Every structure is written in structure tokens, then in C-alpha cells.
């Protein structure tokens, strides 16, 4: 009997290993400079019509069910919330000091004004009469406490790198907080427009302790909504917050569902059982776009798909091989057939949506990058230069249909020119665990990623965390002295044009010369809303960091 039991348990484990669960990973983004609301709309790449807004809701709605395709949030503690599900919910219940506009610009959030007194000093004045969703007043002390949590090494905030140059965070008035930096750093203020700038109630956080941000402990912040009920494994309900400083939202209640199966999500959207979802599956994009149940919006996004390389010894360490991979991929075809038009081919990770400022500088440099078209003959020639080229391995996310399709496409393209690619498809959680840990990652030669996004329209972000030596997302172990220096100079450059000029030098070196990764497409945010509702922000990452449901209401 014991043998039978063990067999059942082993079976369950095996099944579990073959099964799947949703997941997403994020990477840091850029920022814009200094103080004011200087954000300008990035241009959309080309053919596809990308939007920054949807028609505002024009009437009250009792409740809306909304799917989180990457599953239940692991936490709603803002210092750890840095993934799709977490921030989609959090942005409506926990606002930041600065808001990201749907056009990737900056505007006052909880801070009525934010002034750059000098390149190393910022002053934040709170909106008068702000209240937490329990009705308690928001004080400068709460702000100091909330920001300091990002600096506490023991807490391990995701946003810690952007607080590296902070010298002090001090309450300088009842409603005023002053932040001093050890040296100029344009990233700090910009990151206060992400979850790093959330203000939580000090007494609540201290009382909740380790339960803060969990289904048991909840959160206490300022936002148009507050959490009504979080039933683990089932749903999170948020309801309009009567103590909100701004206009009351038209939609009284949003019930977040954790449906991760792509087919089921599509069917639930088409039957109207679920009213809306971000990140609709690319594979169903065509059918959703023509669905009579609602409207599919392709929004501007900082998300991109790329083939990155690891530090593993072998062919990927040779630029000829990496260039060969670049020549194998027909980006136009990928955008059309795998993403059904909701994507644009890109030449570097500094693609048009990320140009939050000095667009002309970025545009000129981007246009001068080689526009590599699929050219198998060239790829074959380059691969011929690589010594000892045998089989290379490529890690992909087995739960992501688009990634699997793309992986198979790259594999077949490579085969035609004599390069054998062995695919390693792992379930989402395992994929993330392997891809983000050097030891796991370096078991493979290449990683195909479809879920990365920049937090802000600011190339310095990617320069810092992925292109600089020792960066958190520097899979390739790229460590070029000039690039490191330019990125640090850009981080200190308060003049936008100067900063852009430094970053295009980084781009030329890292992408133009060294091919640190093969950028493939910039994928649009795929938003679907039932025909009865309208108004959700369709752009990524603004939807993750500013209350996207503020304008959600009955369709006009």
C-alpha cells in the first residue's frame, strides 16, 4: 500500500512539474529629468495604430470583473511589488508621490508639487488634507517612513538601486519632505512615479509587521480604491474609497480574477464572464480584435521581446555568433505572425516608446543603427567564422505560447544554416527562477524573453541594470569600461540632451558593435474591455504605476 501512496504523491509532483502557473518578470525602466511635467508622448513605431487612452467611461458601473493573466499577486507590499499582477492591483489602491501619465510623462500625484531645488535636493509638498483609506490624515512622517523602507537593507526593496545616492529623507514641514542626494541622480525623482514612491500609513505598517501586503495583513495607502476582500486563490475585490482626494471613480467595485490559462481567459472574455484584462494572449489577439463582445486596444508599451545571451563559455561569447543570430530572425514576420500585428520590430532596447525626452537625439542615433533584415546567407557566413560551433541551448517559458512559437521559429531558421538549437522549455516559475539566477542561467547559452519591460521611458534605467557591469539584469555579464562610465555620467546628467547623447553612445557600443542581445520586437499592451465598459489606461507601464481604473465606467 505504501508503494501505491508514494506513487500517487510522485505522480502529483510529476504532474506538477509538467503543469504550469503564470508569472511575469519585470525589469527596470528609465526616467525623465528633474522636476516638472515634461513628459511628451513617445511616437509609436509604425504600421500598427497604438493608443495612449481609451474613451473615458461615461456613467456609473456597479462592478467589473478583471482578469490577472499572470495569476494571483504574491504580495501587495509596494517595496516588493514589481511584476504585472502585483502592480495592476496596487496602482489603484496605493498611489505614488508622482503620477505617470498615460503618455509616459510625469504629473503630480500625492505630492502637489515636486521641486528640484538643486541637482542634489528635491522638495515634495503633499496635497493638503490627504487621507489614508481608513480616514487617517497623511503626514510628512508617513512619507519619510514609506520612502525609508526602500532604503532598509534588511527589507530588501526591489527599488533599492534607485535609492543608492540618497543622503537623507527628512520631514521639513507638516506637509513637506526634503530629499538630499550624495550626488546628482536623475533617476531618483523619476522612480518616485513607480511603486517606489508609494506612501503607506506608518502605524498600520508597523502593526501589520510581516503580514503587511499579504492577504491577511492587507495594505493602507491612498488611492481611488481600497481593498475590500482578498480571498487567497479566488479573488481580490477592491471598492471605491470614499476618503479619496480626487473625484470618485465611476466603477464602484473591481473583482480581480486569477485565471492564467490563455484559452480559458479568451473564452471568458468572449462570453462576457470576465469584463476586461490586460496582457490578453497574443495567440487570441485576432479573434479578440474581431469579437463582438468588446473592444481590443493595442496600447503603447515599453515591453519588448529579445534573445539574450548568458555568461556560459562557448559560441555565444563570440560577436560573430551573436550577429548571426540577429541575421536569422525576420522581425517583421515575427510581429505579424506571432504577435498578430500588436508589435513593432526594434533595433535596440532603446526603441521609440522609451524616448521620454530629447527624442530627436535618440531618433537620429536609432535610425543610424543597422536595420538588420533576415539574411540566412549572411548568418551562415558569420556562423562559419565561429570555432567549435555545435549545439547551443535556448531557455524559454513553456507557459507562454508566443515564446514557444518564437523559439520554434528561431530553431528552424538556425537549422537551415546549420546551427543546432536545443530548446529548454520550463514552466513559468521554474523559468523565472533559472533565468534570474546566474547559476541557473549559465546552464544555457541563450534566453528567449517575452515578458521584459522598462519601468519608465528612460534608457538610463536599462543602461544601469542590464548594460552596466554587475547590473541586476545583466545576464550576459557585459562589462565595458566606457559603457559603465557613460551610464554613470548619464545618471548624473540633469540636462536631457546631454543625457540622451551619452545614452546613444551606450547604444552604439552595446547594440551596434557588441550585440549584447538580439532585440526582436516591442510588443504592444493588449487590453480587452467588454463593450459595456470603457476608460482603462491602455499603456504599459503607466497602468502599473498610476490608477488605471480612475476613468473606468460605462461605455458611452
Amino acid at each position: 500500500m505504501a508503494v501505491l501512496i508514494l506513487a500517487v504523491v510522485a505522480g502529483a509532483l510529476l504532474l506538477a512539474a509538467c503543469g504550469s502557473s503564470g508569472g511575469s518578470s519585470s525589469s527596470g525602466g528609465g526616467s525623465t529629468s528633474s522636476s516638472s511635467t515634461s513628459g511628451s508622448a513617445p511616437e509609436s513605431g509604425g504600421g500598427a495604430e497604438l493608443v495612449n487612452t481609451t474613451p473615458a467611461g461615461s456613467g456609473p458601473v456597479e462592478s467589473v470583473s478583471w482578469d490577472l493573466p499572470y495569476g494571483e499577486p504574491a504580495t501587495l507590499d509596494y517595496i516588493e511589488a514589481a511584476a504585472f499582477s502585483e502592480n495592476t492591483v496596487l496602482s489603484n489602491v496605493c498611489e505614488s508621490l508622482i503620477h505617470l501619465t498615460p503618455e509616459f510623462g510625469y504629473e503630480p500625484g500625492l505630492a502637489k508639487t515636486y521641486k528640484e531645488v538643486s541637482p542634489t535636493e528635491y522638495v515634495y509638498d503633499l496635497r493638503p488634507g490627504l487621507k489614508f483609506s481608513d480616514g487617517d490624515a497623511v503626514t510628512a512622517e508617513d512619507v519619510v517612513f514609506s520612502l525609508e523602507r526602500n532604503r532598509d537593507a534588511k527589507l530588501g526593496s526591489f527599488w533599492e538601486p534607485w535609492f543608492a545616492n540618497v543622503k537623507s529623507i527628512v520631514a521639513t514641514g507638516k506637509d513637506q519632505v526634503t530629499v538630499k542626494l550624495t550626488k546628482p541622480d536623475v533617476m531618483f525623482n523619476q522612480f518616485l512615479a513607480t511603486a517606489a514612491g508609494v506612501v503607506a500609513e506608518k502605524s498600520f505598517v508597523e502593526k501589520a509587521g510581516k503580514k503587511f501586503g499579504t492577504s491577511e495583513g492587507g495594505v493602507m495607502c491612498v488611492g481611488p480604491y481600497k481593498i475590500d476582500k482578498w480571498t487567497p486563490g479566488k479573488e481580490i475585490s477592491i471598492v471605491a474609497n470614499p476618503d479619496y482626494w480626487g473625484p470618485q471613480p465611476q466603477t464602484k467595485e473591481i473583482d480581480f480574477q486569477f485565471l492564467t490559462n490563455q484559452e480559458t481567459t479568451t473564452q471568458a472574455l468572449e462570453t462576457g464572464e470576465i469584463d476586461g484584462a490586460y496582457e490578453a494572449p497574443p495567440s487570441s489577439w485576432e479573434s479578440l480584435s474581431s469579437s463582438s463582445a468588446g473592444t481590443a486596444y493595442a496600447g503603447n508599451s515599453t515591453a519588448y521581446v529579445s534573445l539574450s545571451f548568458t555568461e556560459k563559455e562557448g559560441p555565444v561569447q563570440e560577436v560573430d555568433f551573436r550577429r548571426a543570430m540577429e541575421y536569422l530572425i525576420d522581425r517583421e514576420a515575427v510581429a505579424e505572425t506571432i504577435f498578430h500585428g500588436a508589435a513593432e520590430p526594434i533595433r535596440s532596447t532603446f526603441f521609440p516608446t522609451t524616448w521620454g525626452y530629447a527624442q530627436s537625439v535618440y531618433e537620429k542615433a536609432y535610425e543610424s543603427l543597422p536595420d538588420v533584415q533576415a539574411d540566412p546567407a549572411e548568418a551562415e557566413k558569420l556562423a562559419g567564422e565561429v570555432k567549435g560551433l555545435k549545439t547551443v541551448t535556448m531557455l524559454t517559458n513553456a507557459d507562454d505560447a508566443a515564446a514557444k512559437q518564437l523559439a520554434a521559429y528561431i530553431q528552424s531558421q538556425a537549422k537551415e544554416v546549420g546551427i543546432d538549437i536545443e530548446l529548454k522549455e520550463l514552466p513559468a516559475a521554474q523559468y523565472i527562477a533559472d533565468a534570474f539566477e546566474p547559476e541557473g542561467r549559465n546552464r544555457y547559452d541563450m534566453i528567449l524573453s517575452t515578458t521584459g519591460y522598462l519601468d519608465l521611458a528612460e534608457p538610463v534605467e536599462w543602461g544601469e541594470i542590464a548594460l552596466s557591469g554587475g547590473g541586476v539584469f545583466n545576464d550576459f555579464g557585459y562589462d565595458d569600461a566606457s559603457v559603465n562610465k557613460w551610464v554613470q555620467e548619464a545618471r548624473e546628467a540633469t540636462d536631457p540632451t546631454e543625457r540622451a547623447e551619452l545614452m546613444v553612445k551606450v547604444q552604439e557600443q552595446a547594440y551596434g558593435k557588441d550585440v549584447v542581445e538580439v532585440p526582436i520586437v516591442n510588443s504592444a499592451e493588449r487590453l480587452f474591455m467588454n463593450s459595456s465598459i470603457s476608460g482603462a489606461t491602455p499603456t504599459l507601464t503607466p497602468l502599473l504605476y498610476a490608477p488605471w481604473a480612475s476613468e473606468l465606467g460605462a461605455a458611452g
Partner: protein
Amino acid sequence: VRAGGDAAKLVGKQVAGALIALLLSSFVVFSALYIAPGNTLTFLSGGRQMSKQAVAQLSQEYHLEESFFARYVHWLGGVFSGDFGKSLVHKVPVGTLLGPRVGTTVLLMVMAGLVTIVGGILVGVVAGLGRKRTRGIALGLSTVAMAIPSFVAATLLIAIFAVDLGWFPVFGAGKGFGDQVYHLILPSIALSLGGAAYIGRIAAVSIERAADSEYVETARARGLPRRAIVRRHVLRNAMVPITTVAGITFAGLIATSVVVESAFGINGLGALLVESVLSHDFAVVQAISLLLVAGFLVVNLGVDLLYMRLDPRLRRAGA
């Protein structure tokens, strides 16, 4: 009275065996998770780099720095005092996490079990006692049903009955008992197709064999009505192998439920088990595994008790 005493003895024996089995399996699951590749801290941190202090803090909180054996003993001690530990990922006690899901999964299992067994026996009766043509059709259909993987069945059922006809909801487990049963009808059918077909084939053979046996011929010769013969002599004798297969099939349902729960967006134990195994959330994996093993043991006990009822010889032998 005699039979009751035997049953009590059997239950006592089985419970003792079950406790040992639970202990053993908890150790095996714990070891498997320990050996599985991947660093627990990577899952905890979602892949980002953490400061040394943060790592130390987490290691201490979840006893990650302790030896394998110390961690197991620590966990076991907690279980004996009623504490199943805390989820690494969700940071809440395991009980809080499992509570809302147990009911859903149990209901799904019961419904799927009923469909499997009743459906299987029906197929068996039709195929075993029917004419050649009926038999061919029943067996042919059961072959098709067995060949369809449950996730394909789930997709087909949703497309036809939920999307096209709109008779059933596409996903979710519903609220309140009636609504839950309604929500779980399609999932339980998707889950039981293969098992029902399998039991059907076994049942068809056993029923056919029993129908051809000498005692049935004797009964027929004595002029007993056909219905009584089928019920008392054919079915009853065919039930022993059917029960055996049904017990094993039911245990298999528990494992397959993972796939079906995912397809129908039901947040049951299966879905949570997958998620937890992948993220090395060992306290949750342990608790669910133990629940599954316990569920299996209960079914097993039920099967043994049923044997005693079906076969008087077993009663005397004391199982």
C-alpha cells in the same frame, strides 16, 4: 455483530497503517523538494538581487540555513502541535491558504468520482450484456474517450457547452453550494472521461465473464427472471474487480485534477500544488501532499470495506 467487529478491526489496522504511510510520504516529499534544483531564496526574491541582510533575515525566518534533517524535524514538530507552517510565497499560514480550496477540490473529486463510477458501470453493463452491435459501439466510444487527454476534453467541453451553447460557465468554482455544483459539472466530466471509459471496459469484461459462468447458467435454467439474475448474480460478482479498478482510478483523478483545474480556472488544491512545487513552497507542498495521501487512504479504506460487503469470504478472513 461478527461482521461489525471485523470491520472495526479492519479500520483500526488501516488507520495505524495510514499514519505510518503519512509519515513516510511526508519524508519522501520533503526530500524530493529538497533535492529538486533551484535555490529557495531565488523564488522568494523573485529573481532580483538582495542585500546580505535581507538574505540573512529570510534564511532565519524560514530556517533555510538549517540542515536537511533539522528542517524536517522542525516541520514535523510544528505539525504535531497543529502548526503546518507558513507559505514562503504568500507569507500566510498554510491553513489560511488551503481553507477555501479544500472544499472546492473535495466537491470536484466527489462529483468526478460519481461520474466515473456510475458512467463506467453503465458502459460496462451496456457493453457486457448488450448485443454485438451495441457492444461494439460502447467499446468504440470508450476507446475514443480514453484516448482524449483531459485538457483536450476540457477545451472541447468549454467551446461547445460554455461558449457556443452558453449552458455552463466558462470558468471558476462559483459561490454557494448549488452554484458550485453547477460550475463543476463540466470540469467533473472532463476529469472523469478517461476513468469512466477505463472502468467501463473492465466492467464489460467482468460482467460478460460473470454472465457466462456456470452459476448464472444454473440460475437461468431455474427460470429466475433476467433482471434478478443480472442484479444478484452477474453484477454482484463483477463488482469485485470493478471496485479494485475504481479505487485506483479515483486516486488517479486526484493527480489529473491539476490539469482540469487549470483549464477551468478553478483555484483548487491541484493548482496550488503545482504553483507551490515550482516555487519550492515546501510547507504548502507538504500540507497538500498529506491531504492527498489522506484522501487516497480514505478511498482505499472504503474499497476494503466494500470488498467485505461484496465478498463474504473476506469477512471471515478479516481482510
